[in-house]
C-alpha cells in the first residue's frame, strides 16, 4: 500500500474515532483493504469481520440500540445486496446506520465487472432515498463525521462513497 493510501486510511480512522464510532463491521472490497487493515489494527475500534453484508447491517443496528457508535464498511457490490435489510430494519424502526462504500464502476475503476455498479449504485441509493456524499479528496474527509452525525438526526441510514483515487492517495 502506498504512503498516500496509508495516510488516507489513518485520516478516515481518526475521523471515525472522532465522531464516536467504536464498532466497525466490514466485508472487503479490494479498494478498502488499506482502510480495513488500518481499522483492524487500531485499538480505538472493535473490528468485526462479517461474511455477508446484511450481517453488518444487523450488527450496527443492534449496537445503536446499545448506544454504541458504529460503521459498516463494504464495497458497492455488497451494498447492492443489503436493500432488504436496510429498508426493513433501518427504515421500519428508524434506526440510524452509517455506511462507508466504494464508488465502483466510475472513472478510475479498471474492472469491467463493476460497470453494473457504475450504472446502478447511485440509482439504487436514490430509489430508496438513502442520502450519500462522495469523498473524492482529502479535503472531503471532514464530511465523514458530518454525515455520521446526520444519521443520528435523520434516524435513518446515510452513506459516504469513496473514489478509488482518494483511497489510494492519488489526486484526481
Amino acid at each position, binding site marked *: 500500500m502506498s504512503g498516500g493510501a496509508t495516510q488516507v486510511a489513518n485520516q478516515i480512522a481518526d475521523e471515525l474515532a472522532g465522531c464516536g464510532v467504536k*464498532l466497525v463491521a466490514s466485508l472487503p472490497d479490494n479498494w478498502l483493504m488499506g482502510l480495513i487493515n488500518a481499522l483492524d489494527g487500531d485499538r480505538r475500534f*472493535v473490528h*468485526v*469481520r*462479517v*461474511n*455477508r453484508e*446484511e*450481517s453488518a*447491517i*444487523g*450488527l*450496527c*443496528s*443492534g*449496537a*445503536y*440500540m*446499545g*448506544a*454504541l457508535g*458504529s460503521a459498516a464498511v463494504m464495497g458497492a457490490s455488497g451494498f447492492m445486496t443489503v436493500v*432488504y*435489510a436496510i429498508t*426493513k*430494519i433501518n*427504515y*421500519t*424502526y*428508524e*434506526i440510524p446506520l452509517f455506511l462507508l462504500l466504494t464508488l465502483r464502476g466510475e472513472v478510475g475503476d479498471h474492472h469491467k465487472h463493476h460497470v453494473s455498479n457504475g450504472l446502478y449504485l447511485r440509482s439504487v441509493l436514490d430509489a430508496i432515498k438513502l442520502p450519500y456524499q462522495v469523498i473524492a479528496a482529502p479535503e472531503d474527509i471532514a464530511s465523514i463525521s458530518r454525515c455520521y452525525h446526520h444519521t*443520528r438526526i435523520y*434516524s435513518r441510514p446515510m452513506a459516504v462513497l469513496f473514489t478509488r483515487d482518494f483511497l489510494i492517495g492519488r489526486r484526481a
Partner: protein
Amino acid sequence: MKYLDCFRALARQRTDQVVITSAGNSSQAWWAATRDTEASFYLDASMGLSTMFASGLALAQPGLRIWAFMGDGAFCMNPGMLMVERQMNLPNLIHFVVSNRVYGATSNAVLPNFADNDYAGMARSMGLDRVFELGSVESIERELAPISAANTPGHTFVVLEVEPFSEAEQKLEQPPFDGPELKFRFGRYLEGRTDCNVFGYRI
C-alpha cells in the same frame, strides 16, 4: 413440543434477559406469552438478522444478558452468521433457533432438506462449544436455567425443536407496535437499566 408451550416455558424461565425476536412466529409467540412492551425488541422486519442485531447490542452492553430467537427458516437464510458469532464469542448472548422445519409465517411451507437439517451439528462444525438441543417443555424447565445462568465464557447456541404453528396459533396477534414506538420503548428501557444514552438525549 407445541410452539406456544415452548415460549410459555421460556417466559417462565426468564429472569432479567433482554429479548430480540425474529420475523414471523417467534414474535407472535413471545408477544402471546409475555405481552412484554419494554424489554423485548420484536424485530419482525427482517429474516436471518435477529442474532446479528442481538450481537451488536450484546457487544455494546456486556452487562445485559440477551436472548435472541430465530426461526430455522431465517437461520437457513444466513447460517454464516454462526462464524461471526463464534468469532465474537459473546458470553452474554444466547442464540435460540426455533426449529419447526417450515416457514411458519408463510402457511407452513416446508424448508428445503427439512428432514435432515442438523442445526446443532452446523453450529459445532463452526467451532461453537456451548450447543444444546431442547425438545420438550420439561427439558426447558430442567436445563435452561443452568444453561442461561452458567458463568462460562463463550457464545451459547440452543436449538428448540417445536411443532409448526397450529391453525389456532396462526391466529395469534402480531406485536402491534409501529417501528419507531418499539425503538423508543426498548431504547428508553435500556437507558433506564444501564444508564446509557441511546438517542442523544435523556428524558
